[in-house]
C-alpha cells in the first residue's frame, strides 16, 4: 500500500557529527528513510539515541554533515532565509515543553494571527480572521472568547499544548513533527492530545511524525515505527510487526522494560 503513496520526506545517508577529532560525537549515523504522505510515523529511542538531532535535521534547524534530504521527491533547498521560510510553511513542529514554546511578550491573538498571516491571509477582512481563529480554538475545545487578550503563561500546560494544535490547524502544513508531545503532561491528558493530533491528521491530510521514547504511544498511533539506537535505525516496519514481533535484541529489550498489564511483566531480566 505504501508504494502507491507519494513520498513526502526522504533522506539518504543522513549524518550529523558534533565536535572534531577525538571529541567527536556521531549523533545521527547514515540513516535512510522514506516517509509517505498521510502516514503516521514514530521514531522511538532512549535518551541520547539521536532522535531529537534527527528532528532538528528534518526541520532544517541544523545542517547535516553528510547526506541529503528530499522533500516531495526534490532535493530540499534551504540555502537562503526566504527558501527556509517557504520550507517551514510545509513542515511544522510541536515540542515537548509547551511552557517555553511561546513568545512571552505576544498575546494569544497575536500567536494565532501570525499563523493566518503566514498562510497568506494578511489582507483578509478582520471579521474573517476572527472567524478563523474561533474555528481553530473550537477544534481543540478551547473557547476563543476566553483566550483573547491573554498571555500564554496564563494557560495551563494542557491548554497550551492544545493551543499549539490550534496553531497547526491554521497553518495546515504538509508535515507535522511532534517531538515528545505528551511527555510533560500526565497520562489522562495524553489521550486528549493524541486524539486531537489524529483528528487533525484526518482533517488536513498531513504526514505526522512522532519522536518519542514511549513505545506504547508509538504502538497506539503509528502506521510505521522506526527504532533508533546510537544514531542508527536498528529496526523499522509496521507497528504490529515491530512491537509485537520484534526481531532485533535491542527492540526486544526495550519492549520488555515497559510495564505490561495484559501479560506478565518479567522483572528478572534486569
Amino acid at each position: 500500500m505504501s508504494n502507491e503513496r507519494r513520498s513526502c520526506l526522504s533522506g539518504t545517508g543522513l549524518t550529523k557529527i558534533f565536535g572534531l577529532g577525538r571529541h567527536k560525537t556521531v549523533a545521527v549515523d547514515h540513516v535512510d528513510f522514506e516517509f509517505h504522505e498521510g502516514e503516521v510515523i514514530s521514531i522511538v529511542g532512549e535518551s541520547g539515541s539521536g532522535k531529537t538531532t534527527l528532528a532538528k535535521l528534518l526541520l532544517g534547524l541544523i545542517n547535516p554533515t553528510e547526506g541529503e534530504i528530499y522533500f516531495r521527491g526534490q532535493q530540499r533547498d534551504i540555502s537562503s532565509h526566504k527558501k527556509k521560510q517557504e520550507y517551514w510553511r510545509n513542515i511544522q513542529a510541536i515540542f515537548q515543553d509547551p511552557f517555553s514554546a511561546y513568545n512571552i511578550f505576544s498575546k494569544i491573538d497575536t500567536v494565532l494571527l501570525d499563523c493566518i498571516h503566514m498562510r497568506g491571509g494578511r489582507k483578509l477582512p478582520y471579521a474573517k480572521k476572527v472567524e478563523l481563529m474561533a474555528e481553530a480554538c473550537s477544534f481543540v475545545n478551547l473557547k476563543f472568547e476566553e483566550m483573547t487578550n491573554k498571555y500564554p503563561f496564563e494557560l495551563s500546560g494542557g491548554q497550551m499544548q492544545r493551543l499549539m494544535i490550534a496553531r497547526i490547524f491554521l497553518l495546515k502544513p504538509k508535515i507535522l513533527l511532534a517531538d515528545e508531545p505528551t511527555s510533560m503532561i500526565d497520562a489522562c491528558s495524553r489521550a486528549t492530545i493524541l486524539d486531537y493530533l489524529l483528528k487533525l491528521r484526518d482533517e488536513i491530510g498531513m504526514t505526522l511524525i512522532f519522536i518519542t521514547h514511549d513505545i506504547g504511544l508509538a504502538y497506539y498511533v503509528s502506521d510505521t515505527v522506526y527504532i533508533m539506537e546510537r544514531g542508527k535505525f536498528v529496526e523499522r516496519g509496521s507497528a504490529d510487526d515491530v512491537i509485537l514481533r520484534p526481531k532485533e535484541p535491542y527492540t526486544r529489550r526495550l519492549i520488555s522494560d515497559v510495564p505490561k498489564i495484559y501479560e506478565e511483566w518479567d522483572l528478572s531480566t534486569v
Partner: protein
Amino acid sequence: MGKVVLEVKDLTTKYITRFREDVYAVDRVSLKVEEGKSLGIAGESGCGKSTLALSLMGYYFPPLHYMSGEIVINGRNISGMKPDDVRKSVLGTEIAYIPQAAMNALNPTQKIIHFIEDVVLAHDPTENKKFIYDLARASFEILGLPAEVLHKYPVELSGGMKQRTVIAVSVILRPTVLIADEPSSALDVTSQKMVIKMLKGLMDNGFIKAMIFITHELPLLYNVTDDIMVMYAGQIVEKATAKEAVFDPLHPYSKGLMGSIIVPESGLRNVKLTAIPGVPPNLKKPPAGCRFAERCKYVQPECSATSVPLYDADGGRAYRCILAENTLREAYQHVQ
C-alpha cells in the same frame, strides 16, 4: 487478614496561601495498610497525591497545615505530635519517604557514606562509625548495589543509580512504611525497571513492612501494588485491588483514568482510548456535591446537591458515586 501497620482515619489537611485562602488538598481520607502489602495511589496531576504523602508522615510545615483526623502507625498515634518529635522518632524509623525529585535529595558535597552516617547519627548519636559502615555495606549488598558507591559523590552516579542509592539510604533504619512518590518518573525505561525491581525486593528482604506507592502511570502501579486507591480533587473516589481497579473500575473517574492506559501489547487494539474532558475543580471552593459531577458522563440531577459518601461494595471495595454498582457496569457496557 494481616496485622494493620498503618491506619489513617478521616485525615484532613489544608494549604494556607499567601492571601489567607484555604485549599483543602486532602479531604477526609481514610486508609489501612496491612503488613506485607503495598498500596498504590493513582490520580491526575493536582489531585492531592503528593500532599497526601506529605500528610501521612505527620510532619507539617507551612503552607501545609494539619486540620483533623488520626494517623496510627504500629499502634501509635502520631497526628498530634510536634514537628521536632516527629522528625526524631517517626521519620526514618517508622515512615520513610522517597521524594519525587530524589535526584536532588543527596548532598552534592558529601560522599554517600557520610550522608548515611548523618542519617544514622541523627537518630542515635552513640552509634560508632564502623557499625554504620558495616550496616550500609550489608544493606547495599542485599539490594544489589556495588559497595564502591558508598565512597562516591552524587555527581559521579548516573540518574538511575542515584535513585537506587536514595532508596537504599531511606530504608537504612528499617522503617515500617515506605512512601514512594513517583520514584521513577524522571528515568528511562531500563532504569525504571531496576528501581521497581529493587522496591519490590525491599519487602521480601525485610527492610520495610509495607509500602505506599504514588504515581500517575497506571501500568506501573498495576505491576507494583496489591491495592489501588484512586484520588480525585483531594478525596478518595475508589478503593479496590489492583486487578479490579484496572479491569473493572466502578467510579466514572476511575473508568476514564483506566481508559487512558497505553501499553505496547496486542490487547490495546481491542480497547478504545477515552479521555476525560474538562479540568479538576478549584479546591479553594470545592463543589458542594460530587466533585466529579461537572466532568461526569453519567451525571444525575441530584449529584451536585449533597456530598457523596464512600459506599462499600462487594469484596472489600469502596467507591464514591450515587449510582448503584450494576447501573454503572451496565452503562460502561454500552460504551464499548
